[in-house]
C-alpha cells in the first residue's frame, strides 16, 4: 500500500510517505488507524494529536468503515487550512 503524509504529520513521521504491506485482517480505514497507532512512537503521536488526523483512500476522504486494500493509496493529514 502507498502511504502519504502531509503537513505536520509528515514532520512528525520524518518522511513524505512509504510503501507498506498491509497486515492480515485489516480491511477498513478504522482497523488501519488502530494498527498504525501501535506501530511506533511517532505514529501514536500522530493519531493521538489534539487536532484530529484525516484519512483519504485513493484521494477521497474516508471514514472508519471505508474498505482498504494493499492496492490503495492512503494519506494521513491534519484538517485542511487552505484558501
Amino acid at each position: 500500500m502507498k502511504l502519504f503524509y502531509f503537513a505536520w504529520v509528515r514532520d512528525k513521521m520524518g518522511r513524505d510517505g512509504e510503501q507498506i504491506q498491509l497486515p492480515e485482517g485489516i480491511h477498513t480505514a478504522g482497523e488501519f488507524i488502530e494498527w498504525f497507532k501501535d506501530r511506533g512512537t511517532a505514529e501514536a503521536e500522530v493519531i493521538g494529536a489534539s487536532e484530529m488526523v484525516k484519512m483519504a483512500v485513493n484521494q477521497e476522504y474516508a471514514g472508519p468503515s471505508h474498505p482498504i486494500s494493499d492496492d490503495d493509496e492512503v494519506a494521513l493529514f491534519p484538517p485542511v487550512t487552505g484558501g
Partner: protein
Amino acid sequence: MIRVQREDFDVGQEINRFSNDKHDIGAVCTFLGLVRDLAGDSIKTMTLDYYPGMTEKELSKIEAEARARWPLTDCVIIHRYGILEPGDRIVMVATASPHRQAAFQSCEFLMDYLKTRAPFWKKEDTGDGEQWVEARASDDVAADRWTENIE
C-alpha cells in the same frame, strides 16, 4: 475551471477571460484571498503545501456541486502553492450567473467548501521558527450552513 499552480495570477485577466463577449451573464462575483499579516511584521513567509491529485479532485467536486445548486454560466477556482509573502495572492474564486444572488451565494459556498475540504495546509514562518496553521472551527460552521440551508 480548476487551477492549482505555483505562479501568481492576474485577477482582472481571469475575470475578463470568462466575462468578455458574453451577453447572458449579468453578474460576476469574485473572491480574492491574500496572505495576511495582521500584526504588521509577524509573518515572514507562508508556505502552502497540498496533496497533488486529491486537491484537484476535491476542487472539481466542489465546482460540480456549485454548478448543480446555482445557474452558473462560468466558474473558476485558482489556488497557489509554494512559498508566499504577506500581501501575495493565494486563492481566487469567481462565479458568473445571470442572477446577482446566485453569483454571490455560489462564490461564498465555493470558498467555504474549499476552506474545509480542499487538501491545502499553511505553514507560517514568523522569523522565530515555522508553525503549521491550525484549522478554525468557524470555517466548519461556515461550511455547515450550506447543508442546512437548502435553496
